[in-house]
């Protein structure tokens, strides 16, 4: 006898992510989820981003790694609440980890929650964390064909950020080709290029983030009224 089940394999994670999304909406929190290969510059981007905010801006950071709290130490210097999620070998963050650490952090909105996922282009893309947007980073020292090799994450990400653009004169990387490849997978994906070292492109990045925050706030207001 065949019995139809029709449920998501990750339905338990999806349920928790929906709860988080509801919480973010109620508290007016914008949550974004940063995903990239190891070493593409997620932590450097977050450092520079935190450094650009006016003091007292309501921001919190969760950062995931298999081991060590090195990233949290780097990010704590900016004076915002930061919590390291050590996954102990798990190659991605899931909604339960985010929920637990968010509770322990005691962060309440309104504000911005930056989640730095474990460095990995594959597994994090399957796990919804309740975020408003997934942001995928690609550095100029990688290959332009990465979007074609890892289509799952480029398909789900709202924004692709090309990082380490200060290195462009020294490497054979064609930003146009990388973007073309990303748009083969996801024609509507937003695109920014920046250097966390020189600050080039940061105005556009902060403007993108502010626009998303504005949009999220309007949606929250519309949902209430």
């Amino acid at each position, binding site marked *: *006898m065949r019995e*139809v089940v029709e449920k*998501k*394999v*990750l339905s*338990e*994670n999806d349920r928790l992510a929906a709860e988080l999304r509801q919480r973010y909406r109620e508290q007016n929190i914008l949550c974004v989820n940063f995903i990239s290969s190891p070493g593409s510059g997620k932590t450097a981007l977050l450092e520079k981003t935190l450094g650009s905010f006016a003091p007292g801006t309501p921001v919190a950071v969760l950062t995931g790694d298999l081991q060590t709290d090195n990233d949290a130490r780097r990010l704590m210097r900016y004076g915002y609440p930061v919590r390291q999620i050590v996954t102990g070998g*798990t190659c991605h963050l899931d909604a339960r980890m985010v929920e637990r650490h968010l509770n322990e952090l005691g962060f309440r909105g309104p504000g911005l929650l930056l989640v730095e996922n474990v460095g990995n282009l*594959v597994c994090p893309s399957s796990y919804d964390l309740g975020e408003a947007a997934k942001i995928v980073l690609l550095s100029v020292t990688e290959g332009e064909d990465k979007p074609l090799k890892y289509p799952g994450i480029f398909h789900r990400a709202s924004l692709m950020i090309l990082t380490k653009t200060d290195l462009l004169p020294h490497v054979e990387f064609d930003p146009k080709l990388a973007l073309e490849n990303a748009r083969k997978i996801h024609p509507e994906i937003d695109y920014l290029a920046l250097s966390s070292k020189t600050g080039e492109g940061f105005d556009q990045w902060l403007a993108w983030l502010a626009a998303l925050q504005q949009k999220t706030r309007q949606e929250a207001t519309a949902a209430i009224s």
Partner: protein
Amino acid sequence: MHEVGIASSIIESIEAEARRRPDAQFTAVGVRIGELSNVDRDALAFAFEALTLKTPLEHLRLEIEWCPRRQKCLACGEEFVVKDWELTCPKCGEARSTCIGGTELDIAYLELEEPCEKS
């Protein structure tokens, strides 16, 4: 890479179902895996076999249906399978289309035998 976690989630669902109907004999589980789901079929099959070994679910078959990326044309409504990242509608040439398949990561069905009630 995370196929062990995916296999565990599938097994947890079956175990929950098994608790609900203790007399049933589960023989197979059907899952749908989309090409954009980032799940490798062979790694999933291997993880599933390893995790069910020497458990009551040892003989359960994992049946995987692989789902290619499918798009629907925003102009003429044609539904088509994407090959070589070509998202342009093969029927009318429209460039804009929306994704309607390929992200699946679903448990579709369970096959089971329940003892007939005999009076």
